[in-house]
């Protein structure tokens, strides 16, 4: 099977790279072992929230030079300050260009609202989500928080309490629909996905509008749990029109509807541009000659190889088994590439879960242009993208999506320039 580029790993990074390549007429296949970590997305993408020394970041493009000084192996350090800024700006255009509306700016972090009602800095948020420009207060003094009766993955009470600390009053309203009552036959599976399938139905729109109208609302805005927009992105617009005031979403506990939507949307876009997406398959081995990957073999395709000029490895981190940790070592299972990690297991983690964890910074070693290293040698046509990379701490720094998207765009551009 011949392609210009084969991308191993079909999550945020792999799809970004693939779409960018397809947009320039490149023939691309993605092989993905399973679905991606986007299924747990908050609905926001982080670029840089906190420097390694703990200092908060308000303008990532200004602070990145400090980051580069503190973390020389960081993916942003490999890009360099100028490229970082350029690609951060391009990312925003890239996402809205393919039809994923986002709000935010790489020169000014805004604040997203967590499922607990607290504020956290971020770079880009899905446009339907509630955000604030300030870290101390919200844009509204009075909100109405709605929730589906019996939905246990959303906490209006916690959210209202946090909002109160910031000077915003909330009233809470529980609602149900006949279709939701049918779902309740399985109480342990009354989850965001089942609910979203009901709330997205055109046939339930009028009832939702009626429910909004029934409650006398003197609030400035309405908040719903993020159980809309899995298939149908029009329902919220209809609710806004009917309510005559803004209607926003706040994320729930997983599965993340916005995450699933983003994954499915990018997947469909990739296919629509002519890409081949092979889900549920794992690349098992590669033929490497003279520091070039000649072909790769997957479990499903057996002795029919993938032949490609370039390979991008975007297999993610521990969750997706892009990195595997045993008791004594951390390794990359497809090519056995060089992995940067502390030799002593006692240095891998801190006992306090909320402290900085070293294992989060382990990853595959690359050169300045994200070429993979194997036994110290550069593999000239194998690139490493996304969470798999060494040298950054996505949780403590708030840099996960930024690394995934920027490295993917950089690598796609590098391949296209060859």
């Amino acid at each position, binding site marked *: 099977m011949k392609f210009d580029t084969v991308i191993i790993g079909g999550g945020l990074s792999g799809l970004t790279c693939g779409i960018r390549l397809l947009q320039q007429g490149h023939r691309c296949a993605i092989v993905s072992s399973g679905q991606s970590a986007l299924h747990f997305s908050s609905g926001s993408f982080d670029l840089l929230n906190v420097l390694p020394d703990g200092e908060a970041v308000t303008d990532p493009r200004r602070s990145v030079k400090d980051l580069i000084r503190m973390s020389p192996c960081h993916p942003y350090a490999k890009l360099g300050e100028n490229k970082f800024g350029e690609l951060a700006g391009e990312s925003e255009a890239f996402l809205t260009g393919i039809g994923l509306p986002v709000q935010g700016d790489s020169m000014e972090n805004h604040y997203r609202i967590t499922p607990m009602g607290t504020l956290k800095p971020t770079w880009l948020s899905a446009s339907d989500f509630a955000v604030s420009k300030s870290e101390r207060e919200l844009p509204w003094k009075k909100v109405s928080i709605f929730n589906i009766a019996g939905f246990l993955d959303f906490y209006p009470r916690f959210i209202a309490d946090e909002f109160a600390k910031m000077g915003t009053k909330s009233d809470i309203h529980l609602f149900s629909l006949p279709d939701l009552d049918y779902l309740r036959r399985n109480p342990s599976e009354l989850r965001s996905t089942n609910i979203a*399938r009901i709330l997205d139905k055109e046939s339930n729109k009028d009832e939702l509008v009626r429910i909004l109208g029934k409650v006398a609302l003197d609030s400035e805005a309405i908040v719903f749990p993020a159980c809309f927009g899995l298939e149908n992105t029009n329902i919220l617009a209809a609710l806004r029109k009917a309510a005559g005031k803004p209607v926003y979403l706040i994320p729930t506990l997983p599965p993340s509807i916005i995450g699933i939507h983003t994954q499915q949307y990018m997947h469909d876009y990739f296919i629509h541009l002519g890409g081949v997406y092979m*889900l*549920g398959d794992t690349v098992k081995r590669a033929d490497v000659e003279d520091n070039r990957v000649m072909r790769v073999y997957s479990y499903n395709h057996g*002795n*029919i190889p993938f032949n490609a000029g370039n390979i991008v490895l975007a297999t993610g981190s521990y969750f997706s*088994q892009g990195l595997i940790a045993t008791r004594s070592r951390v390794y990359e299972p497809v090519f056995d590439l060089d992995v940067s990690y502390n030799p002593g297991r006692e240095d891998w983690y801190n006992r306090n879960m909320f402290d900085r964890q070293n294992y989060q910074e382990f990853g595959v070693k690359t050169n300045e242009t994200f070429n993979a290293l194997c036994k110290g040698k550069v593999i000239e046509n194998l690139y490493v993208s996304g969470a798999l990379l060494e040298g950054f701490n996505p949780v403590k720094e708030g840099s996960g999506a930024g690394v995934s998207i920027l490295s993917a765009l950089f690598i796609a551009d590098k391949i296209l320039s060859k």
Partner: protein
Amino acid sequence: MNLQQHNISDNNFEQCIKCTICTVYCPVAAVNPAYPGPKQAGPDGERLRLKKSNFYDEALKYCINCKRCEVACPSNVKIGDIIQSARIKYSKKKPKLRDYILANTDIVGSLATPFAPIVNLALGLKPMKSVLDVALKIDHHRTFPKYSFGTFESWYKKQADKQKKFKEQVSYFHGCYANYNNPQLGKDLVKVFNALGIGVQLLRKEKCCGVALISNGLIGQAKKQAEVNMASIRESVLEKNIPVVATSSTCTFTIRDEYPHLLDIDTSDVRDNVELATRYIYRLLSITDVKLKFGKEKIKVAYHTPCHMEKLGWSYYSIELLKLIPNIELKVLDSQCCGIAGTYGFKKENYKTSQDIGASLFGQIEASDTDYVVTDCETCKWQIEMSTTKRCEHPISILAKALG
């Protein structure tokens, strides 16, 4: 031995991190709240069942064995296998008469084909469907596929000598559908392989692959039939060095993977030489100079990916072969379950679930401007023809038609 260093759990169930992604993609969980979902039915339930077998939930019968949970799982857990294995091991429900009739395709097929015109007429009558609905709980909306007046095997007997003359040979596992319902599919396969300069022969003795027997709890019968098939396959692959090809995606998947995973029948010595005909042909065309000469006739098709094809990962081959036809307009439908799941959708208690699962696919099909829907699975074909206005054909039949 440090136990933590080795993953010793069956079907990787210990790798499950309870992320619930499988349940997001389960076609049944999306429409039927009576089904607990693959996470709970599979790895989560398994933890409990290993403690005490009476934690088994009979609601696992709603699982359609589509394996889309496995395709979605980021942790390589064989969720579908865990669920099916649990059904086999723990279920206390005995198969009913209806289940015997639906699952024993060889018996019913052999009895029906000599009387096909009468049988087909009878099965098509509304009163007959009502009787089957009330007496056996076979839903009256369902239409049985028509039986052929004469099996594929009996047609083949007359071709056998001619086929022997080809230098290259493949063995054809025809399956119940081609044999009892649609010998034309088998004839089309022979035509396509002959056009490639390859002769087609049958296995010494072929029985139904057993997928319906497995899902209806007739495990002993399934194992017996599997042993017969494996003996025939081994004779072809190991003794005669002749690979085995099949047209049915489900038969292929069942023989290669369900035999070892669910029936404890080892296939590792021959698995790589049992494959779908479209895969065999794709490989042949990509590594040799052999070409197929197609006519210039225009044709519009929409390709549907059966669930087992999605699991095998082989729809690429069928699609690429269709693309070789010069004036074909090919649209690939979104990969989703059609809902019939073999004998599952014929049962009255599953009819609503079946149709709810397939609704979005039917909508896509009706909205597309095509001459045919094309798919490799015969039960998908029945479902699409029962639930939409379009006709559905196998890729091999489309290729055969285009060869002129």
